[in-house]
């Protein structure tokens, strides 16, 4: 037992329990205090993650290395930003309940366990902790039919995915004789060939994880849930859990099943191609900006998976950078969506952004930056994200991936630019004044997106170290 190694998770878990008590016991409304407390706990956990030593704990079920550090920091950043974005919105919508930060906290804990999982059991544990939290917050606006529907849909399909995962895990256990990733790796690299059942099990696990990252063809839930869930919840859905799921997918594929790269690669290429194409095409006709962002996130996952699909160190490094950049740009864009509110009513139509260029030039500029970054226009951060994965694909000789990637980003530029066009060239009324918390998020993510090109070195170095730790 190595309790000190899991200090970040412990802190989060204890903070969650304390917040639960603090939310239930006092008579008055303590939601703001709990928000702040959870935010602080996340920051503390982040600091602890940075100081976390390397090693394994709980009989090899839990692992800590450069890769987990990189991913956990991203997850915590995404969760903290999600909380910031949500606070004001919840108050205005009458949803300022203490359960919200609590659920975010527990989902973060789940994600951290996922990232650090070195065992199928731990993997499942983390994934379910995350999923259960997500099911609830998707339906958090319980008086809204759409929110409830979103939660229910997500729950049903998520359960199906969990079932697939468990089935795959049991197959793997059956054929490899262990749930531990290191043991599985030994079984895979055994000289007498890989058992057939092990491969099928891997497919099931990959399918379940593909569901979590909403890669084609397991993406169907995404647009409906994104549209139905409250906007800040969607913002959270599109950021931290994606990162965690990608981390898990990478860990599973490149770690224990690294030897089978030839086999899982084809599935991932297919998923990547499908996601890129669907993300580019389906978003074109959308009128609801949350739906648009849903398809956009599917497309982005396609690009990220391209990094994993090429199966090289360079590709994984590109994937990690892509996720980091995607996370911040995405949170920024969603902060704009959360700020869309006129006369106290939340708005979701793309047309509702009309005239923003005149009525709120600062926010319109920030949104322009995010949209252009997502479209991959240099010198914004999104361009470098795409650059690194395309580079890996080209070096690996995966021309189909690179060409389709370039074409689909050209197509997707259309709908990103449409948002900009609506903001600057259409006439519309002013939105309500945006709260300070959103301004802070907008400024932070906007500056990151704009100036990433000037200081990419620390991110590159961190990603490089993470890849080294993962591949060994």
């Amino acid at each position, binding site marked *: 037992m190595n309790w000190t190694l899991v200090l970040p998770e412990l802190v989060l878990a204890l903070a969650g329990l304390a917040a639960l008590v603090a939310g239930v016991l006092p008579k008055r409304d303590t939601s703001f205090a709990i928000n702040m407390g959870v935010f602080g706990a996340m920051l503390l956990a982040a600091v602890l993650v940075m100081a976390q030593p390397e090693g394994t704990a709980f009989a090899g079920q839990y692992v800590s290395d450069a890769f987990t550090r990189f991913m956990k920091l991203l997850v915590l950043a995404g969760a903290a930003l999600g909380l910031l974005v949500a606070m004001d919105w919840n108050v205005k919508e009458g949803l300022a309940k203490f359960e919200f930060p609590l659920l975010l906290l527990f989902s973060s804990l789940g994600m951290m366990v996922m990232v650090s999982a070195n065992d199928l059991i731990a993997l499942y544990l983390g994934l379910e902790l995350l999923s259960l939290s997500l099911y609830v917050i998707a339906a958090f606006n319980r008086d809204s039919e759409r929110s409830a529907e979103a939660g229910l849909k997500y729950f049903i*399909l998520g359960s*199906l995915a969990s079932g697939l995962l468990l089935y795959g895990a049991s197959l793997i256990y059956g054929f490899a004789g262990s749930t531990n990733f290191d043991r599985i790796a030994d079984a895979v690299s055994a000289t007498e060939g890989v058992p057939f059942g092990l491969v099928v099990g891997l*497919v099931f696990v990959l399918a379940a994880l593909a569901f979590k990252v909403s890669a084609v*063809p*397991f993406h*169907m839930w995404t647009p409906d849930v994104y549209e139905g869930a409250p906007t800040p919840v969607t913002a959270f859905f599109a950021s931290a859990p994606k990162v965690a799921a990608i981390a898990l997918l990478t860990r599973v594929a490149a770690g224990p099943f690294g030897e089978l790269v030839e086999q899982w690669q084809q*599935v991932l290429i297919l998923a990547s191609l499908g996601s890129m194409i669907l993300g580019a*095409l389906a978003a*074109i006709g959308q009128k609801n900006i949350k739906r648009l962002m849903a398809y956009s996130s599917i497309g982005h996952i396609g690009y990220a998976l391209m990094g994993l699909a090429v199966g090289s160190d360079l590709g994984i490094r590109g994937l990690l950078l892509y996720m980091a950049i995607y996370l911040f740009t995405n949170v920024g864009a969603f902060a704009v969506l959360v700020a869309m509110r006129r006369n106290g009513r939340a708005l979701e139509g793309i047309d509702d952004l009309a005239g923003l260029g005149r009525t709120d030039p600062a926010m319109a500029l920030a949104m322009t930056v995010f949209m252009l970054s997502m479209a991959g226009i240099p010198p914004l951060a999104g361009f470098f994200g795409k650059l690194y994965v395309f580079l890996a694909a080209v070096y690996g000789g995966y021309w189909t991936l690179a060409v389709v990637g370039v074409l689909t980003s050209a197509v997707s530029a259309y709908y990103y630019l449409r948002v900009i066009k609506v903001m600057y060239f259409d006439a519309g009324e002013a939105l309500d004044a945006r709260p300070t918390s959103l301004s802070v998020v907008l400024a932070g993510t906007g500056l990151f997106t704009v100036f990433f090109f000037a200081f990419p070195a620390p991110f590159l170095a961190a990603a490089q170290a993470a890849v080294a730790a993962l591949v060994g």
Partner: protein
Amino acid sequence: MYVGAVFFPLLGACISGFFGRWIGDKAAQWASVICMALAAICGVSAFIQVAYGHAPATLEIATWLDVGGLQLSWALRYDTLAAVMVGMVTVASTMIHLYSVGYMSHDPTQPRFFAYLSLFTFMMLMLVTADNLLQLFFGWEGIGLASYLLIGYWYEKESANRAAMKAFIVNRVGDLFFMLGMGLTFWTFGSIEFNTIFQGVEAARQVTFAGFPVVEVIALLFFLGAMGKSAQIGLHTWLPDAMEGPTPVSALIHAATLVTAGVFLMARMSPVVEYAPNVLGFITFIGATTAFFAASVGMVQNDIKRVIAYSTCSQLGYMFFAIGVGAYQAAVFHLFTHAFFKALLFLSAGSVIHAMSDEQDIRKMGGIWKKIPVTYAMFWIGSLALAGVPYFAGYYSKDFVLEAAYAGHGWTAKYAFLMGIVAAFMTAFYSWRLIILTFHGTPRADHHTMEHVHESPAVMLIPLFGLAVGALFAGAYFSGDFVGHHWAEFWNGSIVNAPHNHIMHEAHEVPSWVPLAPTVVGVAGIVLAYVLYMFLPHLPGRIAAAVPGLYRFLLNKWYFDELYDRAIVQPLRRLAVQLWKVGDVKIIDGMPNGAASLTAQASGRVVRFQTGRVANYAFAMIIGLVLFVSIFLFGVGR
């Protein structure tokens, strides 16, 4: 001082161009005029110092390019040739700036005009002081740009836009050859700096390019380039149309600057051109033909500015055949005197147009000489100088050009002499035709216009006086230095005559009837003009009716425009229309548009899967799983 002469106009252009909106019209005008005047002071003192103090200098300003074997600086090369040009350009330009203050006083966008005018002058100065071909080309293109802006200054006028584009496009034809020449120069000499080129000429004479001596090819390319700028026959068509610009622009472009750039280029490249005898013969032929052609067309034109424009074209022909026979000094001398009297003529014509309420057709003028006596006198002085009447500026230069042509070798020189004499006759004739039709006879303008005829304000007359002084005395004063016995000392090696070329000496020793001939034919032309237009005014119409073919041929400018229209413009336009309708609209636009509509259709299909039913979604997931498993099992290749 050297820097000031070149960069004051740029300063003026920047002030009136960028800040004219804030500082107001008056301030912008006078800022550019003062800058120009300062430049003129610098320019004249530089001329005195370099030409008479025998102190040529090269001034490095900054490194421009350093690419592989190509190293270039921004540098001002002041030798006598450059100093002559700088002095002449700055003085003439100052006069024209000053004149414009009066002439453009009713224009709504004066700062823009003055900015263009100063920019133009700066570019011209950049051209003449260049110390390498690329910097010269910078100025060359710069004056092309500025002339485009100035000719099309009244951009609301369709004809002005057309004229501006025509000037630009025709010049581009010449520029192409210039660029080729520059490339070949670099290939041959390994440098495009003048010093290196001139030192390498001896070695380069042995080199051949595509079977021809490389020196000949380079000289030919540069001459073809110069033909565009200097409006030699074939590439002259833009020049008369350029009269669409305001009159001060015509004066600046046709007198002092733009059109002389070609002559200057030839003089600058004299060390190279000297060793290209065949090309020199070609230059002589083209120059002589141009002189004759333009003079013949000038005889029948009815637009006051067009007549003067054709006379410019004709005089440029003189300069070129002077170059062709090897008398570069004579060419530059004629360029120098021509600048004064031609600017004077244009500005006087502008004064007439101003007085006549913007009327330019001489058939609608007449009988105004008493109302505008000063302009009338100025017009006389300009015309006398142009016709080469003794002791006026044009007499010295034109005479010497013709003497040089007579002394020159080969049939082209004889041809040039003959054409030059004929053109001199025609020049005198059309000049006085112009004077008589414009100022004398019964008024043909309507009553309203005649009432408004008035002398121009002082700000327009003062530049006329200044230029008149030049037209009166520049020839007599400078002839001894430019082409007289002190020429070798004066030019100080800035123009090179090959050892075998003794033209400067021989031209002084022609038979005594040769110097007299231009005067005689000139006076004869004047007399004929008086007879035809003053005393027997119905005769010209009868003559025209007697030879209608010839008359129409001349009136339509030898049908050059029509020829180009049929042979080049129309086919190109047809081709362009084809490319546009088929190539661009159907193919180039068609592909992305088709791709876009396909994408939109695909988008519609993809979205249709999104039914909203959980069962469908779950089904899709299962299908996906099956797909994945099959891929694993059967292994679909990449």
